């Protein structure tokens, strides 16, 4: 056996990507109306090959409860709610071209790039059984409707501005220098976010970079939120006291007038 040769040809210089965010912490104050974060990045590629950039932003994971409206005796009621896990509270992909033109199905799936490749599951609905003689098949109680449920999760999140795909969301502003804008809606969940920047060449990811940022309540908003969750009973008493005092004050003011 010959040892593997390393000197057949000089390895092509590796392309690399680098990126940074204009903000690493989004502050939620009383005037919070959503936020825009700008991501700048650069590609270092001595070979100057054709490059594509995909930016995937994920927010903190939030389980989703979803119900289907069904008609019973002329009245629309909710079905039993189904819980989907693995759904990020915020998800956005931005790319230089449509994702399916940049890379193949398997590559995108492994990266979790694109809404279709998000690992959203309803584990409580699944059970393992033997079907057609095949053991350990994962079967969902939602049956054939499973895809429809999953699509509904995505559709409702999209209409709330929480899920988005922008296939022109990454633009080159100069040679090797690109930019992408991340818009967070007011309803964006509080927590840690991760932006994953992937450089593609010839359909393969060749370089990756990760930038984290946080969305957090600050000032009075944070103080009230912490108060409400850490000392809920005192919080309740305080809010009722304000209410009763305000009622009394208004009455006293009007009496004098």
């Amino acid at each position, binding site marked *: 056996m010959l040892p593997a040769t390393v000197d057949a040809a000089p390895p092509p210089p590796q392309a690399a990507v680098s990126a940074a965010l204009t903000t690493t912490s989004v502050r939620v104050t009383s005037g919070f109306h959503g936020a825009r974060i700008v991501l700048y990045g650069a590609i270092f590629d001595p070979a100057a090959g054709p490059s594509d950039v995909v930016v995937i932003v994920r927010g903190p994971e939030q389980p989703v409860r979803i119900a289907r*409206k069904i008609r019973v005796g002329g009245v629309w009621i909710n079905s039993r709610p189904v819980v989907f896990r693995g759904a990020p509270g915020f998800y956005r992909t931005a790319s230089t071209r449509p994702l399916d033109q940049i890379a193949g199905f398997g590559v995108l799936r492994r990266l979790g790039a694109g809404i279709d490749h998000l690992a959203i599951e309803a584990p409580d609905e699944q059970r393992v059984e033997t079907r057609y003689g095949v053991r350990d098949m994962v079967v969902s109680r939602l049956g054939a409707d499973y895809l429809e449920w999953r699509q509904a999760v995505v559709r409702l999140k999209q209409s709330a501005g929480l899920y988005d795909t922008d296939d022109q969301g990454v633009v080159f502003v100069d040679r090797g220098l690109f930019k992408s804008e991340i818009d967070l809606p007011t309803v964006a969940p509080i927590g840690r976010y991760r932006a994953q920047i992937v450089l593609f060449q010839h359909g393969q990811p060749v370089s990756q970079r990760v930038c984290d940022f946080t969305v957090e309540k600050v000032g009075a908003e944070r103080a009230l939120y912490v108060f409400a969750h850490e000392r809920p009973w005192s919080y309740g008493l305080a809010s009722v006291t304000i209410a009763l005092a305000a009622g009394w004050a208004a009455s006293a003011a009007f009496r004098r007038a």
Partner: protein
Amino acid sequence: LDFYLPIAEISVNAPLLVALGAAVGFISGMFGIGGGFLMTPILVLMGIPPAVAVASLASHVAASSTSSVISYTRARAVDFRMGGVLAAGGAMGSVMGVEVFRWLRLMGQADLVVALSYLIFLGIIGGLMLTESLGSILRARRGDPPPPRRDRRPPWLYGLPLKLRFPRSRLYISVIPPILLGLFVGVLSAVMGVGGGFILVPAMVYVLRMPAGVVVGTSLFQIIITTTLTSVLQAGRNQTVDIVLATLLLIGGVLGAQLGAKASSRFRAEELRAILALIVLAVGLRMGLGLFLTPADPFVLMTGNG
């Protein structure tokens, strides 16, 4: 001028909420109801999560009720003893109601039960009040004598044990009917996010046969006690009270309630009841309508995790 609500986690227009609070407070002071049955549906339509709307509203209702109860107390129009008995039942009811609501949310049926309760209760109460008040308005127009007042109170009101004297209402009845009434209203108040005045007021007039003069003040007094309790329970148990939302609403609410209480003396009682009946019917039908219309999207996301 938008405000971010720290618990509801959405942004709302502050002047709009204050104006809304004032409008509902006006109706509240005028008719002696909490106004929750109006406010809850409006807040939910504005996109505030129902659980937060219901819980935060309780303290708004408490504020505007306090504001008008003080005026009624000066006019000696509050039966504190009756209010206390009703509130004892109401306290038990709201503890039960908060638990029932938690369970309903877990089953995903909270929307259905809330919409059905609005349709059924507001529909029945509004319909009855409208018929009755239109009848007396018409009689007054034609100059007919009022029908002989049926002073014969239902015998079961007197046959029950545990009688108590209510001097302000000129009643000597068992405490069981008022406690049951309070209990029922307490459950509804937690489930529907209402004070329950729209049920209490007619029940006090037609079932307990209390004199009309003390009904409104007493109902408001009992509403303060139940909503105060509900508000603390919701904050402690579910962390769903948004203090910023509640404060914005009650700034307008307390002022509106004062003006409403003043305005109410300019109208005749049956005219007031007819207007209230129309409002109640309209809200009930609007909430119930959603049950029959085909939804725009067959799926719905549920907020919270139970």
